[in-house]
Structure formats: C-alpha cells, structure tokens
C-alpha cells in the first residue's frame, strides 16, 4: 500500500499536502482500496468554512456512502471538478488527479499535528490485525 513520505495523514484515511494555494486533501490508497468502486463524489462549495474533523465531502461506492473529514480548519479554496465528473479517478490516482479539495488553513499548527507517513502506515497495519 503506497503511503508517500512527504504527505501528512489523518486517522480517518485522508492525506494532506501544503501547497502555495492551500492544503490539498485527498483519500489514501488504503482508503480507496477499501471503498473499491467509487461511483460518486460530493464536494463542498468553494468558500465554505470548515473545522478540523468535520465531514466536508462524501464518497460513494457501489455498496455505501463514506464521509470525508477536513484534516485542518479553514475555508475551502478549491475543489477538484475532475473527480465529480469521473469519480473512478479516486481509485486510479488518489494522490494525484484524484485529489478532492483544498483548504486555506486558519491554524497552520493543525497540519503539523497530523500523522506522519510512518505513523499512518503503523495505524493501517494495526487495523489489519
């Protein structure tokens, strides 16, 4: 299972990456593998204020719907229309073209407090047992 070392992670299987335009968010390879057949993605409106840990998007697989939580607080700065149009890109490239939305953070310390790649890898290994 790929866990890129340069990203930050949540316990709820989102990844986060600091970019000039804000903190970009997606779901991990482990998460997309568990969901399997992604058929619908519901994204927040740009500008929406979000709190860390709050549900801000929904990904639906054939079997069920899953909440996606904000890794950091702030305002949604951008959303990825490509995943809304072609939800399967979440399965195909979850760390790249399958990103979900970006947040302009209101508290920069929250990002630093997220899980490292090592800590996240340990968590998914622990969940598998």
């Amino acid at each position: 299972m790929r866990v890129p070392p340069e990203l930050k992670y949540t316990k709820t299987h989102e990844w986060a990456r600091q970019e000039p335009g804000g903190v970009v968010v997606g779901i991990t390879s482990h998460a997309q593998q568990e969901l399997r057949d992604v058929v619908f993605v519901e994204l927040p409106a740009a500008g929406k204020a979000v709190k860390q840990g709050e549900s801000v998007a929904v990904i639906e697989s054939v079997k069920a719907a899953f909440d996606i939580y904000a890794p950091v607080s702030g305002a949604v700065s951008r959303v990825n229309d490509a995943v809304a149009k072609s939800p399967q890109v979440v399965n195909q490239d979850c760390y790249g073209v399958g990103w979900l939305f970006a947040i302009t953070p209101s508290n920069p310390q929250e990002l630093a407090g997220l899980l490292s790649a090592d800590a996240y890898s340990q968590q998914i290994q622990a969940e598998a047992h």
Partner: protein
Amino acid sequence: MNKTALHEKHRQLGAKMTDFHGWEMPLYYSSILEEHRAVRQAVGLFDISHMGQVIVTGREAAQALNRLFVSDISQVGEGHACYTLMLNESGGILDDLIVYRIGPEDYLVIVNCGNRTSDVEWMRAHLAGEAQLTDISEGRSILAAQGPLACRLLEQVLDARVTSLGRFGIAPIRTMGPASCIARTGYTGGDGFELFVPDAHAKRLWDLILASGRAIGAQPVGLGARDTLRVEAGLRLYGSDMDATTTPLDAGLEWTVAINKPDFIGKAALVAQKQRGLARKFVGFELTQGPVPRAGMELTVEGRRVGTVTSGTFSPVLNKPLGMGYVEAACAKPGTILTVTVRSQRHAATVVKLPFWQSERKELVDARSP
C-alpha cells in the same frame, strides 16, 4: 458462521467476504463493477450454495405445490421450471422461489437462504395429500455461470445438455453423482445456468469452469455484483423489495399468479385486493447522475412523501444510478418525476418501465411482465 464447500476457493482468490444471513460469502474478488461487466460481456461464476434446496416428491406432489405456490404448477412439464411465490393467508409474500420439475412426480424447489427454515416449516405444515418433503441443502452446492458466453463454456466442460436446453429448462449432469442438474436459470436478467451438485463435485467444477473460461474472460463474481446485476434487470430481492407485508400485486408480480386455478394459499386475499384496487405500486426509477439511491430513502413529489426506496445501485452498463421502490399508485406511471432526497439534497428521479436492462436475445428474456 456457515461456510460453503467453496469457502477455501474464495479465500485463495482473495475475496472480500461478507456475512449474508449467517453465511460467510464473497462480496467481491476484484471489483464489483468489473465483475458486473464480466457477466454482461463474457461469463461470471457465482457460488450460491447458501440457497436452500428442497425436494418434494410423490403421487400428489403437483397438487400439493399448487396449493402452496401462486403459479399453476400442473402446467410445468418434466424438465422445466417456473419462477413463483409462496404466500401466507393474507396474501403476503413468504418467499420467491424457482420450482423445477426434475421427474414425473419430483420437484426441486430453490428458496432464499434467509427463509430456508421458515419455508420448510411452512411447506411441511401445509403439504396436503400424498407428497413428501426433504430439505437436501446440507452437503449440496449451487454454482451459477452467467453471461452471454456461459453456454459455449459449459458446453465444453459438462457432460449434459447445455445449448439445447431452453430458458427455464433443467437436465441431469451425467458425471456428477445423483440428482446433479443443470438449469438455464439465473438472477442476472441475461443468459446463464445454475448447476446443482453434491459438495464432493463443487471444487472440481469451480476450478474447471474458471480454468476453461479464463481465455474468454470468465471471472468469479461475488454478491456485490449479484445485487447490481439483479437491480439492472429489475428483479426483486426478498427482504428488500418484498416481504410478508407485500402482496404479489403490490410487488408488480401479478404475472406469476394463476388466479383462476382452483385454490391456493392467499388467493382470497388477492381477489379481495384486486377488487379494492392498489394503493401503492412497485416502480423503477433512474437518476441522470448524482448519488446512489439507497433502501429507506424517501420519495416525494412536490414536497409530499409518496413512497420509499427499497433497492438502489449504480449501473456500470447504463452508467447511472438506478432505484426501485414503492410509490402511491398515482405516481407510478413511467415518466413521472419523483424526488429522492440524499443527505438533505433533492435529486430528480424519473419513473421508468422495468427492467432497466435486458438481453438483446429475446428468446432468453424471462417473461417478467404480463
């Protein structure tokens, strides 16, 4: 948890397993959407050994079954089968099932696994005349090979009638022990076969079909795609789309009912309901895009609740969300625009005629409407 004789095969194939009415069954092996496409384009192999198998035999077996089921069992010839329903006295559906006439006085009845115990009790309690009932489910497996290439594949690997078997036909498989049969039936809306064999033959048959079919795209298929396939074909699922609180008229299954045969359990209630008229109807609806409608979601028209979703899925073939459910009779006409509310957002859903999808080969389409 109950396990089928093929449980180890599923593990070896890396299946994601799920609890289905107390049975540990494969949900998917690779992906639900991919397995679904394999069934529509090539052939998919299912383990459906969790389903119950009941034998009814005896000089008056046909008459006994004719009282238990809504269809005219006396019209089912040897080597043929029919899809039918078993009702309680109020006309409520106890189960939907297929009854196969495998001998002059011998019937094989395949029931839903969740209803097996209650079905057998009910049938025993209401079995009249010279007829004996045996639950033969233990020690027996059912494999289903479904899809447009299933016929070609099974013709190669089985010593049985395959190509010459008509829709809803059943014939013996000669090399696989007593009471081994092949039937041209299924739950996908397309061409396909179900194989009833003793457990001792199940693993070999499973491997043989997958190995021989690999080159033409045969794949193992789990219950996830079994559900998306049956929804696409507009086939009802017991426990979701119908139960003891729905009658065949409510569920749009009046075509199964031989209302003019002498008597059967539930007949009086159906006759009375027909005179009263239907308050609700079972419909299919589709969304052009958006989220997947799921069981329990409300259906409204202009803000007024008119019904409930009972099944929903995303169709990989039609590439849109589909749903089925009950609505007030006035809202059941194809073309009616309903609203389905998902996470407090409203989405338009258009009532369409079922099935959503059907095989282009008309001779293989089941009679699903009057």
